[in-house]
Structures are given as structure tokens and as C-alpha cells.
């Protein structure tokens, strides 16, 4: 007894020590050392991260962490971004807001991804949390500008309002005027996803003028180019800026105004927006280019020569998002100019066209991999690839942590040898030992999965489409990838065997998505019955799965671990498999 006391610190000391530990993983580790550490840690955890809103109930979270100030929730699976999750599937945030509103009024930050947020939820946030500071909605939907007006009107201490890639019902742009004239605390505002054609510029201007701490401002497409100068004039302290539409009749006065105002923004590090760009106005940003670390040109439909000129002015670029108009030639220039490049995303300008409309091939990716020593994250859409290129890329850039390649036509073979791309992707996983995220495409057999299972020991997220030959492929991944948390598969011939043989693995992962594969309803039922800590959801818009023979494949399958049990907010086309699934299906 005495020995124990001699070695234990007072709680306050431990709490102070824990306050330096911010990462969730570390906090989770701390909480498992012993019971007293668990207790101390849970009382002083301030930020909670819930990767799947259905894995745990709001009440459970609040019970365990009674004093958190910040919560991050994720809802729909990633493939919802590509319309693979039917509308109405779920991911409603309201129950969370309702529970938290009741529990304590001092919540400060809410970050949501792929969730359904209603105006009612926003109004409840505005009403319930007096010191509310940060609202980040990423790929969310279900709300309108009315909800935003409520937030603007009531949250006097709001610092951050970030709507990225959200679908907002644009009822009126005048929600911005709901920020009271006394409100000055805004630090970050991202309204780039709003569409309203009549934006209230004067309200925006006044808001920017009085919020002298504003560091991030991302405008929406409706803000015309000639209005930007007026807005920027009052915010020379901006660090991140997103333009609205970047086109206008070419007028020297507008140009010089814009150029002048931009060059007075000495802190500017990140630019985005650039919808409808016309090249004539691009040189206006040259003065700030040398300091830019992040540039998002993914909506800029300008051609390679203009992109090359722009990119050559940005030697300190770390992050570039661009359309494939940049072409191989532009990527070669990027490789020689931007030695600090860490992240590159090249999006397709014509994803549904049958023919290539630009000269962007695997060569561009090879050039950047060879030329940029710090490159670690890539998202690349192209129309052809070779094993040789992938091997070169892997060898020259073993520091990749995220490698996402999308060859636009499914099952495209190596264009030089006509073989599958197994060896190429195999090289990626073999050389890039810290790879955490991988997306595959092209013609792939079970062999690539054998490589992945053998080498990709740090892989946390894998996306697979139109690949593999048999259950063996899936088995390699489930049995080999020790760090796997998220697996999403579409249109692959993976069926029951691998899934059932690796059922235990599924409890160590956040989730598994399989659509247009070959998993039978019988297997789903079996999994649901045998694994009570997994929610096995069958999503099928054709009708109840038991109206077809049991060995018929289900359309979509979403399996995730949960301590909250099956959910009850499912739409008619989602069925959960559990012990009572036989009874539930009528």
C-alpha cells in the first residue's frame, strides 16, 4: 500500500502531463495503462474523434468524456462521394447535437464529415453552446442558408466557419448580414461551395473589414473578379485566400487594382478558387507566387502554357491541385521548379470522354516522382500506365504515404506489355514502406493483392475497383494487412469465403464496403449472427434481400464495428443483419 502511494502522482500532476498529449491514439494508449489513468484521462480529454458516428452512441461518448470541448464526427462511407451510397442512408447529426446540447453548454468545436446536417441542427447549435467557436462541415448536406443565418446571428465567439464541398440549399445570400455589426472574431471563413448568384457583397465587405483577425477567406463562384479587390483591400493580413469567378472583361483598371491589392497581402500562402479563369488576369497573382505553399487550380480550365508560367513562379509550392490540362510537359516543369512539393492532385478535365483530350500520361507522374524529393501524397487521374513507370516511381519515391492512382478506363492493362499492373503496384507497396493509403486501378489479378498482403504492413486505407479474380485476392488483404482500418471495394469478384474466413479481422477495422461484388445474403446473415460487435448492413434498392434466393449476391454491403448495436434510423433499403435478422426482414 505504501509502495503504491510512493510511486503515484497526485491527479493534478498527471492531468498536467496528459495535457501535452494531443493525439487520439496516444490518449487512447494512456487510458489503457491502468484504471486510475483511465479515470484521469477521461476527465481531461478535450477533443474527441469518432471516425464512424454509428460505432458508438452520443450518450456513451458523453458518459466517458464528460468535459470535452471539441468533437469530430464522420458519417457516410467514403464511396458516398461518388454516389454509391443512396440518399437517405443515414449519418444524421441531430441526435448528437441534441444529446450534447442537453449534457453541457460549453462545447466549442464541431467538425463533421459526410453527415446530414439540418437547419434544425444548426439552430440547436446556435442556441445551445454559448462559447461556440468552430464549425467545420466537410462534404455535408441537408441544410440551407437559413441554418447558417442562425449560426451567424447567435454565435458571438465564432472563429471558424468552414463549409467545404457541402451541398447547401441556397435560399438567400443575405445570411451573411446576420453577423451582428459588433461581431469581429472571425478568423476563418470558407463559403466556396455556396452557389447563390446574388451574393451580398456589401455585407461580406463589411464583415471582412471589421474582422481584423481574419486569416482564411474562401469566396464562392458568385463573387465577381472586380469585387475581389474591394474585399481584399481590407484584409492584407490574409494567409489563405480563395477567389470567386476569375473571369471578367479585360480591363486595365480592374487588373491593376487586383494586382495592387494582391501584392499588398504579404502573408498570403495559399490560393484557391479560380473558377472560369481567363489567362489575362493570371499575372495579377505573380507577385504573391514566390511565397505560396498551396495552390488549388482544380477548377481552373486553363491550358498547359498558362499553367506552366504560373507554376514556374512558385518555387516554394508544397501542395498543388490542378486539372490534367497541365499535361506531361507542365508536370515536368513542376518537377524542376518546385522541389518542396509534398502533395499533388491531378484531376480529369473530361472524365467521361472516351478519348484523351489532353496529353497527360504516366510520364507526368514519373517526372514529378523523380524530381520532387519530398513528394509523399499523390492523387492522379490518367488514361494509361505501365509497370515500368510504376516501378520507377516506387524506387525513386519510397517516401509515399498516400498513393491514389485512377486509370480512367476500368481494367486497363500495361500499355507497353499488355500485362496486368500487378507488378507495378507491387513495387509501390514494397518500396514505400510507410504507405498508409492506396487506391488501385487498371487491370489487376489476385497477384497484386498477394503483394499488398505481404508488404503493405502500414496500410490503413485501401480502395479497390474492377480488380482481382477470386476470393483469394480479398483473403490476402484481410489476412496480411496488419494496420488496415478501412477497406472499400466495388465491382470485384470477391465473395463469401474470404469474408467469412477473416471475420475476426473485421472487428479490428473501422469499416468494410463492398458493392457489386459476390457476397451472398446467406453470408451476410451468418456474419451478422456470429459477430455481435459488427453491424452488417445490406443496402439493396432492388427490394428485401430475402425476396431472392439466399445465395444471390447483395448489391451493397457495409460492415463496421460498433459498440452501439444496430442503428434504428435506417431507410427502407437498408437491412441490418443480427441475431434477429430472420424476424426483422418482413
Amino acid at each position: 500500500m505504501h509502495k503504491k502511494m510512493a510511486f503515484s502522482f497526485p491527479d493534478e500532476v498527471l492531468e498536467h502531463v496528459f495535457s501535452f498529449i494531443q493525439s487520439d491514439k496516444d490518449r487512447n494508449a494512456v487510458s489503457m495503462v491502468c484504471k486510475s489513468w483511465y479515470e484521469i484521462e477521461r476527465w481531461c480529454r478535450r477533443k474527441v474523434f469518432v471516425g464512424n458516428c454509428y460505432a458508438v452512441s452520443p450518450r456513451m461518448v458523453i458518459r466517458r468524456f464528460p468535459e470535452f470541448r471539441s468533437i469530430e464526427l464522420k458519417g457516410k462511407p467514403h464511396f458516398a462521394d461518388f454516389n454509391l451510397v443512396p440518399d437517405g442512408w443515414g449519418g444524421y447529426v441531430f441526435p448528437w447535437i441534441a444529446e450534447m446540447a442537453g449534457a453541457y453548454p460549453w462545447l466549442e468545436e464541431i467538425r463533421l464529415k459526410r453527415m446530414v446536417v439540418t437547419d434544425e441542427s444548426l439552430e440547436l447549435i446556435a442556441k445551445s453552446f454559448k462559447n461556440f467557436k468552430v464549425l467545420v462541415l466537410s462534404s455535408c448536406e441537408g441544410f440551407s442558408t437559413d441554418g447558417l443565418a442562425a449560426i451567424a446571428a447567435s454565435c458571438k465567439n465564432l472563429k471558424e466557419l468552414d463549409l467545404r464541398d457541402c451541398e447547401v440549399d441556397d435560399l438567400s445570400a443575405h445570411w451573411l448580414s446576420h453577423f451582428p455589426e459588433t461581431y469581429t472574431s472571425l478568423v476563418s471563413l470558407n463559403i466556396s461551395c455556396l452557389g447563390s448568384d446574388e451574393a451580398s457583397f456589401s455585407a461580406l465587405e463589411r464583415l471582412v473589414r471589421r474582422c481584423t483577425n481574419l486569416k482564411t477567406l474562401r469566396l464562392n463562384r458568385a463573387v465577381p473578379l472586380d469585387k475581389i479587390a474591394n474585399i481584399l483591400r481590407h484584409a492584407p493580413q490574409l494567409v489563405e485566400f480563395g477567389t470567386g469567378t476569375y473571369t471578367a472583361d479585360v480591363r486595365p483598371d480592374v487588373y491593376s487594382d487586383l494586382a495592387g491589392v494582391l501584392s499588398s497581402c504579404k502573408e498570403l500562402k495559399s490560393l484557391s478558387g479560380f473558377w472560369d479563369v481567363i489567362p489575362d488576369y493570371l499575372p495579377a497573382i505573380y507577385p504573391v507566387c514566390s511565397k505560396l505553399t498551396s495552390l488549388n487550380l482544380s477548377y481552373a480550365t486553363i491550358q498547359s502554357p498558362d499553367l506552366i508560367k504560373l507554376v514556374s513562379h512558385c518555387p516554394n509550392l508544397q501542395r498543388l491541385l490542378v486539372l490534367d490540362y497541365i499535361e506531361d510537359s507542365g508536370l515536368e516543369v513542376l518537377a524542376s521548379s518546385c522541389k518542396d512539393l509534398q502533395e499533388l492532385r491531378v484531376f480529369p478535365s473530361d472524365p467521361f470522354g472516351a478519348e484523351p483530350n489532353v496529353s497527360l500520361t504516366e510520364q507526368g507522374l514519373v517526372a514529378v516522382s523523380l524530381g520532387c524529393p519530398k513528394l509523399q501524397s499523390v492523387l492522379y487521374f490518367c488514361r494509361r500506365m505501365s509497370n515500368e513507370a510504376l516501378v520507377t516511381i516506387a524506387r525513386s519515391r519510397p517516401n509515399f504515404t498516400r498513393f491514389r492512382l485512377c486509370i480512367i478506363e476500368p481494367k486497363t492493362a500495361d500499355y507497353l506489355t499488355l500485362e496486368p499492373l500487378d507488378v507495378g503496384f507491387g513495387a509501390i507497396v514494397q518500396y514505400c514502406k510507410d504507405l498508409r493509403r492506396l487506391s488501385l486501378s487498371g487491370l489487376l489479378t489476385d497477384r497484386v493483392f498477394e503483394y499488398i498482403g505481404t508488404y503493405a504492413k502500414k496500410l490503413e486505407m485501401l480502395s479497390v475497383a474492377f480488380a482481382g479474380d477470386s476470393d483469394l485476392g480479398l483473403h490476402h488483404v484481410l489476412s496480411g494487412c496488419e494496420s488496415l482500418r478501412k477497406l472499400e471495394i466495388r465491382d470485384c469478384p470477391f465473395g463469401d469465403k474470404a469474408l467469412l474466413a477473416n471475420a475476426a479481422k473485421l472487428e479490428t477495422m473501422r469499416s468494410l464496403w463492398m458493392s457489386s461484388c459476390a457476397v451472398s445474403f446467406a453470408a451476410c446473415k451468418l456474419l451478422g449472427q456470429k459477430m455481435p460487435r459488427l453491424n452488417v448492413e445490406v443496402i439493396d434498392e432492388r427490394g428485401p434481400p430475402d425476396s431472392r434466393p439466399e445465395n444471390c449476391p447483395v448489391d451493397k454491403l457495409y460492415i463496421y464495428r460498433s459498440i452501439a448495436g444496430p442503428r434504428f434510423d435506417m431507410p427502407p433499403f437498408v437491412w441490418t443483419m443480427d441475431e434477429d435478422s430472420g424476424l426483422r426482414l418482413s
Partner: protein
Amino acid sequence: MELQLGLSLPSTPIFPFKMLDLNSYGYELREGLGPFGINVNNNCDSCSSSCSSSSSGGADDGGGGTKKRRLLDEENRIVPKTLPLLFWTNQRPNDEDEPKDVDDHSSSAIFKNDGEGLVGWPPVKAWRKKVRRRVANVRAAVENSCGGRASSSTYVKVKMEGNAIARKIDISLHHSFESLTTTLMRMFDISDENGQKSFKLTYLDREGDWLLAEDVPWRTFIGSLKCIKLIRSRC
């Protein structure tokens, strides 16, 4: 640091994959054999036919498992065809007539052809697609009398002077005259510079007038465009 819960399956593994030596499979894909020596081309014509014997679901203590265990004990033997390895739904009756190449799984993928081919492919965020389509919405209710299509379509008829055949182009994919002209040049096979310079882009607007595209801003063009004509410039 995740807690490894170290779960084990129920005592009789349903499919004891781990007992199997992965190396013994080889990749005999060319012969159309899967890992169990079963002909993977054996398509389930309708799901009811081949699986009648296991229709009780095998839900209890490996009742269905006994059949499968026999399968695995006799790795080297051909397995009875009552239990094919893969099940395919009969989504498209027409595809049944095509010879099934092992590497070609296209008939198994559920294609939803709503004008875009596969759903959700390529994996471009819905948000990005919307950005492109908004160009079409800007021109709201365009009565495309040249093409006679419904107003929600973003396709516009394109004719070239001296060329009898009219083509169609998806205008929502373009945001500038540059990209439009590039595409048009490719479409009508005008590859050289001289060729490009000898044509002018004109369009029929909502009022029924033929206008020179280069005279107006892109937004105006898109907003009142009905159809396009490439005419030879007479300088």
C-alpha cells in the same frame, strides 16, 4: 495503439482458409480454374438452380460447413458442382450468350447506364461534376430547337460549313472558348494552325440571331447558345 482483441472464430472455422497453403494454388487462370480447382466459369444461371441443397443457409454450427469442409479436404480433386465458388446474379440476360473469359468480369458488374456509363466511375466527387454542370444551368431553359431535345440536356448541335454531317457536343464540359475550339478542331479533324485560323466560331442565340462567338463573353455565349456553326472566315 489499437487494442488487438484477439478474437477467434467459432471453434469450427467456417472456411479454414488458413489451413490451406496459398502457394499451392498457383495462378492457373488460363485454364479457368480457381483456387479450389473449380471451374470459375460456372455461372449461376439463376440462383435457385445450383444451391438448392444448401438453402437452409448453413446458419448453425457449421451445418453448411460440413459440405465445405469436404471440399477443402480434397484439394486436389474436382469438387462437386453443386457448390460453385462464385455466384453471379442474372442481371443482363443478353450477356449470357457471350463466352465468359475468366479475365473479363464486365458482365458481372452491375452497370447502370444513365448516360454516364458506370455509377460513380471515374471516382470524381459529385461536387466536381456539379461545378461543370452549373454552366448548363446558367443557360437555364434553353429551347434547343436545332436539336429538338429536352431543355435539361447540355448537348448542342455543331455544324461546319462545307460538312454535311452535324455533330453534337456536350457544352457543359467547357468553360472557355479555348477549350471549346480545341475540341471542335479535333472533332472536325482540323489539326493544323492554318486550318484553325480559317474558321470562325458562330452561334445561334435565343433570339434567333447568328452571332460571332468571339464578340461576346463566355457567360453570355453559354447563356443564350442554341447551336454552333463553324464558318470559313473570309479575310
